[in-house]
């Protein structure tokens, strides 16, 4: 619209130039805002190690993509274990979590927290609570664990809902007394649900056994790596011929 053609439409129509400038301005503004929000959001999207998700929770990135923050699981938890995160809490605001030391999951057989989940963030595919993997218990402090000092505390072992499967006691000689045994609590990842009963029950002021996310608790073998004896079990043949001759390197000066 030309400048020297005043009309009553002036206030109602927008020139092409103004439209493009305005659109670009708005697009820039929301892009910047979006960048800022994503940046802050991505910071708050990595939960602290001690905040555990309810049973059946999808991996954290998928969980944050789907959880509607409706609090139904929190309300349906019969033992008030689950908490709804407030903005200052260790997980993304509005999502459910629990802290094992404070209030561990009691592993209800009917898993009521999953029943009414509207998003599937708590996967309906989990039907046996023993298959839940909320985290993995790790005997983090071997120096202060009473059992490892030769005492018979055994509390983590005794309270474990999957006693003798998820936690076993492994005997070894107590070299301090040379008379007694050491009963070391050993956690087995194929059975531990990460409920947190052991962490809650640990008698130390700060628990020696803690439930942490699998990513923190477990190593992962490179996908190319093969363990010879397992490979042999699987295929029936040896990965490397038994009579393989390798050059023997001895320390210098000893000769060959």
């Amino acid at each position, binding site marked *: 619209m030309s400048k020297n053609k005043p009309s009553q439409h002036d206030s109602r129509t927008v020139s092409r130039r103004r439209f493009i400038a305005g659109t670009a301005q708005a697009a820039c503004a929301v892009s910047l805002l979006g960048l800022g929000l*994503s940046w802050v959001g991505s910071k708050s999207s990595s939960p602290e190690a001690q905040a555990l998700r309810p049973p059946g929770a999808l991996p954290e990135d998928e969980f*944050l993509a789907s959880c*509607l923050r*409706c609090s139904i699981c929190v309300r349906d938890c019969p033992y008030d274990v689950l908490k709804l995160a407030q903005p200052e809490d260790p997980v993304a605001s509005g999502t459910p979590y629990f802290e094992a030391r404070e209030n561990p999951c009691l592993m209800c057989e009917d898993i009521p927290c999953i029943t*009414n989940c509207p998003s599937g963030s708590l996967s309906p595919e989990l039907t046996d609570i023993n298959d839940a993997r909320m985290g993995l218990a790790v005997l983090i402090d071997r120096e202060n664990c009473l059992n490892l000092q030769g005492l018979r505390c055994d509390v983590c072992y005794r309270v474990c809902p999957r006693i003798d499967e998820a936690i076993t006691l492994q005997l070894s000689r107590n070299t301090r007394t040379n008379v007694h045994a050491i009963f070391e609590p050993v956690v087995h990842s194929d059975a531990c649900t990460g409920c947190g009963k052991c962490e809650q029950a640990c008698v130390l002021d700060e628990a020696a056994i803690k439930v942490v996310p699998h990513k923190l608790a477990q190593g992962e073998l490179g996908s190319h790596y093969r363990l010879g004896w397992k490979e042999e079990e699987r295929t029936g043949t040896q990965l490397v011929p038994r009579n393989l001759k390798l050059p023997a390197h001895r320390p210098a000066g000893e000769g060959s």
Partner: protein
Amino acid sequence: MSAVTSRSNWKKWRFLLLRRFCQLMVPILFLASPYLVQWTGDTLLINGNLSSSLTLGILPMSDPLAVLQGLLAGHPMVARGLIGAGVVILLYGLLGGRSFCSWVCPINPITDLAAWLRKKLGIRNSHKLSRSSRYWILAMVLVLPLVTGMMVWELFNPVSQMIRGLLFGMGAGWYLIAAVFLFDFLISTRGWCGHLCPLGAFYGLVGRISPLQVSATERKHCNDCMDCYAICPEPHILPAALKEKKGDSPVLNKRDCTRCGRCIDVCEKNVFSFQASFNHQIIASTRSDNRVMDSE
């Protein structure tokens, strides 16, 4: 407002009172549900919150914008969430779209308070925001999950934060709510609900098809007292409906009108009324006019 009036106090305040009652009942029903289980037979009357809820164990309702974000983030959801979103879209499609804003949203009393304080204290200074801002923000809210794979907006959304806070304790959520209040109070009149909120923008789009509308049916009686302009949270929609030119429909812009009914309360001449009509003639003639500049 004129001092001498023939209208009863009930008529002058009814929609405001009903609205406040409704806003109050929403969190109260959520909070009271656990105490009512003996009458509701072991299921909660309403479980959840405004992001997603389950009534009497059968009727799911989900925030359609949140569900949409989840879908865009690449998560298929489960049937209950999808049906719940459909139920809510249907509900507000029938009940007037942004009626969510004025009758249900827990942020509305906060921003209403800010607007009321502004008026009481005579604060006229206001940063002007474009009416289209909320659609840009809505677009941003929908693009972020595509890019990041997270429901980014739900970390900041003051609407869901407010209802969660009322039901579970506010914590640092107060900062967010205070920010919205201060923004509306000191920076921009009706800034949040009227210009920025993407959820309001979303429900506004839903409301375009709604048969429930506020209409200046008796506009021939209008005496230009401007009472409705003083209270309307979206006053830019009033002129087109009130002034009969170019055959403008008397129906208030169905996208922006929050169906709060306050104009019906305050109008001495009973110009406004709620109308329920699927009349396509009216729908066609109330097409929103984007080109109208902000009246603020």
